[in-house]
């Protein structure tokens, strides 16, 4: 592909340096002024340090999310220095022949592309009641891109997978502050060997930007974003799930529904993996005033490893539901855009709701299923509008 040559040219001998903002630096921003942030346009700034950026839902009107509008989630500091020429990816553990690949060697492998909707497990956390700790994402820690790179399967086969290999661990170059446990997670071998699980170097035709894991990241399609480790440098095949904070207690859900305040034993939890069925309304936006006439309600719907079967819209508080029209663009792990033309019969206040159903028969619940970390929020979406 053309972009590969451009990419190699771009990174050849280059050192990408970015000094972390010094700690305890504060000065005020005049009210209403946006925070200068190169390459990131109109994003909701959840945190500058570490960088956590959310897309406003009104950006969800294209099938592929432009990179400057794609959410950014970091658990810790981004790498201070990324040297593409010195970058190496090591593969070891339960394999016959441990190996190390340079970027040029990675590019010699056959490239595949997967259009994937990537969503943070904590997307929608701010909507949980009672509220739970963590980045207080609204509805926009999600986006869709065409990720490209070699298959993880091909790299594992090259190293000679041993029968004892049951899980595959990823580690990246995140800068770990203090005594925080390193961001290391693993995925089961079946998902690692899936033909759509990639070591991605490109995002919608361009090399990954630093915020998205340059020069290479794991891409575990249909799963929570945390599975797709950024700035990837180490892959290790293990005989069991990786033991570490970001596998447990992090990124786990109770096996049975729990109430706020209930104690949950680790053995009564499971790792969060595939995404839930979900839709969001990207227009009209919440609290907007509309003029009488045709209103196109639109948005996006996704379901992780499943396909969206239908999206229904209610404009009467959930009494009646009408089918939305699904957009033409589709791919197995990607969201479907949808739209519904609505003609309000009279002026007044309306609640517009969207509800998705997927190929596994899952339906967005009317009320959210609470859990202690606020993962996989997927209640029926709602915006309130005034028609005059």
């Amino acid at each position, binding site marked *: 592909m053309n972009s590969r040559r451009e990419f190699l040219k771009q990174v050849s001998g280059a050192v990408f*340096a*970015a*000094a*972390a*903002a*010094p*700690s*305890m*630096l*504060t*000065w*005020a*921003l*005049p009210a209403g*002024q*946006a*925070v*200068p*942030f*190169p*390459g*990131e*346009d*109109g*994003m*909701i*700034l*959840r*945190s*500058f*340090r*570490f960088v956590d*950026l*959310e897309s*406003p839902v009104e950006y969800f009107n294209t099938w592929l999310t432009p990179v*400057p509008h794609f959410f950014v989630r970091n658990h810790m500091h981004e790498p201070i220095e990324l040297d593409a020429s010195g970058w190496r990816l090591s593969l070891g553990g339960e394999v016959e022949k441990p190996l190390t690949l340079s970027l040029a060697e990675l590019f010699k492998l056959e490239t595949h592309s997967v259009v994937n909707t990537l969503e943070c497990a904590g997307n929608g956390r*701010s909507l949980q009641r*009672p*509220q*739970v*700790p963590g*980045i*207080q994402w609204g509805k926009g820690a999600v986006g869709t891109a065409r990720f490209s790179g070699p298959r993880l399967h091909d790299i594992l086969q090259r190293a000679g997978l041993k029968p004892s290999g049951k899980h595959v661990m990823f580690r990246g170059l995140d800068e770990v*502050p*203090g*005594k*925080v*446990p390193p961001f290391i997670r693993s995925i089961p071998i079946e998902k690692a060997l899936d033909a759509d699980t990639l070591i991605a170097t490109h995002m919608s035709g361009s090399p990954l930007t630093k915020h998205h894991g340059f020069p290479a990241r794991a891409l575990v399609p249909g799963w929570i974003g945390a599975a797709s480790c950024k700035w990837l440098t180490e892959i290790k095949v293990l005989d069991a799930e990786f033991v570490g904070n970001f596998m447990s207690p992090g990124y786990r859900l109770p096996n049975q529904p729990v109430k706020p305040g209930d104690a949950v034993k680790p053995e009564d939890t499971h790792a969060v993996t595939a995404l839930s069925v979900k839709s969001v309304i990207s227009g009209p936006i919440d609290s907007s005033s509309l003029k009488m006439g045709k209103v196109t309600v639109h948005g996006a719907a996704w379901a992780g490893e499943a396909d969206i079967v239908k999206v229904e819209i209610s404009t009467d508080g959930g009494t009646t539901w009408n089918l939305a029209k699904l957009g033409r663009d589709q791919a197995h792990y990607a969201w479907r855009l949808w739209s519904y033309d609505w003609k309000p019969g009279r002026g007044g206040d309306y609640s517009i709701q969207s509800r998705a159903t997927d190929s596994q028969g899952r339906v967005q619940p009317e009320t959210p299923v609470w859990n202690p970390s606020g993962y996989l929020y997927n209640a029926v979406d709602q915006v309130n509008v005034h028609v005059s």
Partner: protein
Amino acid sequence: MFRKISAVALLAITTGLPAQKSAPANVTADLPAGAMQTRATTACLECHEARIILQQRLSKAAWTKEVDKMTKWGAVVDPADRDALIDYLSTNFSPDKPAYEPPRTANKNASGKSGD
């Protein structure tokens, strides 16, 4: 770009003032005033910025868990300050407070020029 921000930031630290009026590179926000503001700034903002705290709305029990977890993860909290720090956080960032309104980003550098 980040180099540029860093240079501005370092100048600000050296002089103790914002580097230039025309370059309001808002990197972080402040924690609210109070007896524990300075201690909380030292303990928490060494590793992350204030917005991560400003956006939370948690009970005292939840704040207690967070403070103890962060202390284990390297936050420097004098044991004598632990309870006062928990009080400070659970008073300022309790579930009954209005939601935090985050700013937006603009695709430009600290000097106001358009980014890529």
